[in-house]
């Protein structure tokens, strides 16, 4: 039985990462109806920026302060990068056919990916391994580490905060309104351009948290890793109902659990095949995703 609980923990950890990244996809899609394929590469970029910030700016000494500063500085840098991405790659194409923007997104992703390669080199880089205490809890054979708990708890807090922000604040209302009808929102006095920038800021900052977690959890980071995390997060966003914020969270967690259980009980060789089979089944039988129908207004 301990293998089951262990797989649940494994799945929840990786699922939280997918969920954090999926939020960036789903929010941008909600507003712009654009699949931001460069989002995964922004996540990869955040791991590299985080590594460099910690070593160069924070002096490489791990403390509560430096770790918090690492998160905040990296989130800020990636938020700026996200807005710059929107302004340079997507804004000029706002009124162009949707396919142009998708192509532009793929191109922007390649630019970021190669930029990382040229800056930090093509080899594996190493995220500092001493950021958090190396504590391991063994609960009846199920192993949970401090970093796993940190990922789970912090992701949950961020997701709840985002949910409250979208549903309880004026800016959140503006985001929801823009998602339903941009032109009508403009007529009501909402600055839609600012709303779009805000969405890119929030989505990129959450992705940055995901990227730092990837670095902290796996240590080794490569310039091409963004594509894979981006792809899984994209699948998670579609599963949950793209454009739907709770859907992205649920989709991420479910995808992580599904992957872990398939690898554990069926075969690790077939994980990807089953994942995409699941995606196809969901698209066929529930085209709006798991939570797609429940929430009328899609953000």
């Amino acid at each position, binding site marked *: 039985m301990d*293998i089951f609980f*262990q*797989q649940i923990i494994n799945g929840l*950890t990786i699922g939280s990462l997918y969920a954090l990244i999926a939020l960036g996809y789903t929010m941008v899609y909600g507003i712009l109806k654009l699949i931001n394929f460069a989002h995964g590469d922004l996540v990869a970029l955040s791991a590299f920026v985080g590594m460099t910030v910690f070593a160069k700016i924070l002096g490489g000494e791990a403390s509560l302060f430096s770790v918090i500063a690492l998160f905040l500085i990296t989130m800020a840098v990636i938020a700026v990068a996200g807005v710059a991405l929107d302004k340079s790659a997507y804004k000029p194409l706002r009124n162009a056919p949707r396919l142009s923007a998708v192509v532009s997104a793929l191109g922007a992703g390649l630019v970021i990916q190669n930029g990382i390669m040229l800056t930090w080199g093509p080899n594996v880089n*190493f995220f500092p391994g001493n950021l958090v205490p190396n504590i391991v809890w*063994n609960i009846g054979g199920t192993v949970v580490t401090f970093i796993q708990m940190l990922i789970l708890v912090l992701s949950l807090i961020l997701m709840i905060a985002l949910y409250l922000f979208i549903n309880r604040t004026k800016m959140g209302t503006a985001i929801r309104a823009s998602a339903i009808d941009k032109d009508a929102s403009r007529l009501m006095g909402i600055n839609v351009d600012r709303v779009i920038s805000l969405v890119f800021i929030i989505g990129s900052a959450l992705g940055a948290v995901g990227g730092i977690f990837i670095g902290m959890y796996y240590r080794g980071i490569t310039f091409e890793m963004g594509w894979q995390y981006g792809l899984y997060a994209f699948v998670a966003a579609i599963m949950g109902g793209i454009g739907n914020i709770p859907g992205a969270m649920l989709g991420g967690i479910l995808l992580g659990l599904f992957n872990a259980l398939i690898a*554990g009980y069926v*075969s*690790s060789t077939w*994980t990807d095949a089953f994942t995409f089979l699941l995606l196809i089944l969901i698209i066929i039988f529930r085209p709006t995703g798991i939570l797609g129908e429940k929430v009328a207004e899609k953000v």
Partner: protein
Amino acid sequence: MRKLFTTLAVLFAATFFVSNSYAEDVIKIGVQAPITGSYANEGQGIDKAVRLLVEQKNAEGGLLGKKIKVYTCDDEGTAQAAAICGRELVNKGVIAVIGSYTSTCAQAAQEIYYKAGVLQTSDGTADALTKNSYWTFFRNSNPNSAEAVYTSDWMINKKKYDRIAVITDYSTFAQGLGNAVVEEVKKLGGNIIYTGKIKANSQNYTPILTKIKSMNPDVIYFSGYYSDGGLLRAQQKQLGIEADFIGGDANDNPDFVKLAGSAAEGAYIINVPTPELLPYDVAKEFLADYKEKYNEMPPSIWTVLNADGLRAIMHAIEETKSTDTKTIANYLVEMEPYPGLSGPLAWDEDGERVGSSYLTYRINENGNYDVVSK
């Protein structure tokens, strides 16, 4: 005038006679190696090693009372140049050729040496090199399939592992090695409890490791590359799986230790030895001499393996008291293992090296390698 002619004629004849008899007095050895081109570093290493050993042998009085003379031909690492080298060295009258570095070049010249009855010893690892069973060819390295034989022997006969889990990735190399290990382990009556594949660079291996944990393995063998191996080891330790970890040769990279962090300690890696790690006294002596003469270490283990090829041929000439290549070749396939720099040297009739030069390293608490098994 007549006197002058006579003198000249005598001088000429004398020169001719002397040079001719000089030719009779040397044993010619060829080096075919990439002295220029992409593998220049390796090729020059082979040439330097051969010249060092020959110099030492000549200082001792040579072979069978004759001096050894070395002819080097640059094959540039290309098949065409290798074929030209083959002809050139045969025309020079060498009895044996050391090299080349790449399997391609060794293979391109192989037939020329065979037809001329010239011995050839190379570090090429392609299994194809010994497929023709040319009596002139001797591989001084191990073919790719030999690692599996060594690995399974070590796991079953030395470590007595009872429950073995094997992980590969989707690369041709890792699957080939992994499947060969599984096959060899089964041949030895070993118990494979799990085989599975991971997708390289996917980073999250906890699901597959959790499954392996539930099967209670003695050892996890991974045939893929260091970038995944380091993470596998880290996540294995994190999940509290007490099994040993063995990585195939592609895990032999400093990044393995960086990725695994403190979990690297205790992991085993199987590979041909790096020159510094050769445990034999003859090897230590050779490396010290090499360093003294050239002020650098050999570029890689391949230099040492080629040096072993030459040493075996020189040994065979001394033992058989003959420079007839057929006699030497017969001796090489029949001789008792000869202590090489890279481990015992012996050959089968196809020119395949018997036994292996593989070593097992254990990573210690400082992240360095300790040789634990030959």
